[in-house]
């Protein structure tokens, strides 16, 4: 297991320290409000994240690894990116649903380009959010304009991610 306090965690905590000092220098209790808000988020989301990790671990055991690797793996190339793009929009429920699913697929052998493409379409083309928020609040013509402007984004993320993985190797997971 890589070090628990690796460079990533140190940078993160340095950022926490810097923003705490910035908040404190306002002298209006922002540092307390902000820290409290962070703790609240931790209390609310910590238990959910733990069960999500647990579920994702089991699901990755059940998923047929050879199938996942063949269709979504690094070697699947374009096909993996296209599948990722195609299924992304149909997951309702935001990060609570999509992040554990991506973790399970990652552990079962899916490649980073396909998963980044999936996360991209889930957040930019999420059907649920478009129907519930965007069309009612911004109108269908604005929605069409935004979707047209974003059409190239998911395949581009898949391609960029594939290039990045080729240059730097796949990212390390926390295990």
């Amino acid at each position, binding site marked *: 297991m*890589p070090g628990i306090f690796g460079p*990533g965690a140190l940078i*993160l905590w340095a*950022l*926490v320290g810097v*923003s705490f000092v*910035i*908040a404190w220098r306002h002298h209006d209790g*922002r540092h307390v*409000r*902000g*820290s*409290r*808000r*962070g*703790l609240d*988020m*931790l209390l*609310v*989301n*910590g238990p*959910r*994240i733990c*069960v*999500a*990790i647990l*579920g994702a*671990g*089991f699901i990755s*055991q059940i998923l047929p690894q050879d199938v996942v690797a063949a269709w979504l793996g690094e070697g699947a190339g374009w096909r993996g990116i296209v599948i990722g793009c195609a299924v992304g929009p149909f997951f309702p*429920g*935001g*990060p*609570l649903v999509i*992040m554990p699913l*991506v*973790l399970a697929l990652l552990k079962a052998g899916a490649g*980073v380009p396909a998963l*980044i493409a999936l996360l*991209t379409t889930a957040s*930019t083309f999420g059907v649920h959010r478009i129907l519930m*928020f965007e069309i009612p*609040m*911004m*109108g*269908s*013509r*604005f929605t069409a*304009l*935004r979707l*047209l*402007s974003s059409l*190239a*984004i998911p395949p581009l*993320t898949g391609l960029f991610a594939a290039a990045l*993985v080729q240059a*730097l190797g796949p*990212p390390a*997971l*926390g295990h």
Partner: protein
Amino acid sequence: MRGPRRSLAAEAFGTSFWVLAAIAGLAGWAAWELKGTDAVGSALSSDFDIVVFLLPRMIGGMMLAGLVQAILPPDLVARWVGEESGLRGIVIASVVGGLTPGGPMTSFPIVVAFYMSGADRGALVAYLTGWSLLGFQRILVWELPLLGPEFTLYRMAVVATLPVLAGLLARRIPLGPVGPEKETGMAEARPGRRR
């Protein structure tokens, strides 16, 4: 302070916790049925490693998310958009989108307010794209703890410039006037112009 604390616990162990727990239970049972005890054991030990590895990052990520919200309240940040045009306007809208905390219940009222305060279509599209691809709260609260720092950095590097691209394209797509079709009653959500 008992009230808010108790409602936090209620939220933490609300429906979504139990749904996730039920899924985990079912998947655990299925893994045990299909693959046997060893599979369950190896899943548990790898989950434990992930939790131990991610705990300091998860706590740090959420503290950072809370502090950033305290330093940059959304209504202050909102004033930066709409006052700028050109490429600068689109870049600022993308960044502001990434700085907007929360889900669609926060970002859509803000985008309606931008529209009403005269932001152009490029800025509106860039804002929503920036929020959905780079929203810091989702990254710090969900992506970093679950998928780990390296995956998160890869994804951020990959999507970093794309909100700007979407905004630039939106200005060039010939599609009549865009905007809410009817009064949405969001006027009170207009970003604070206190002065």
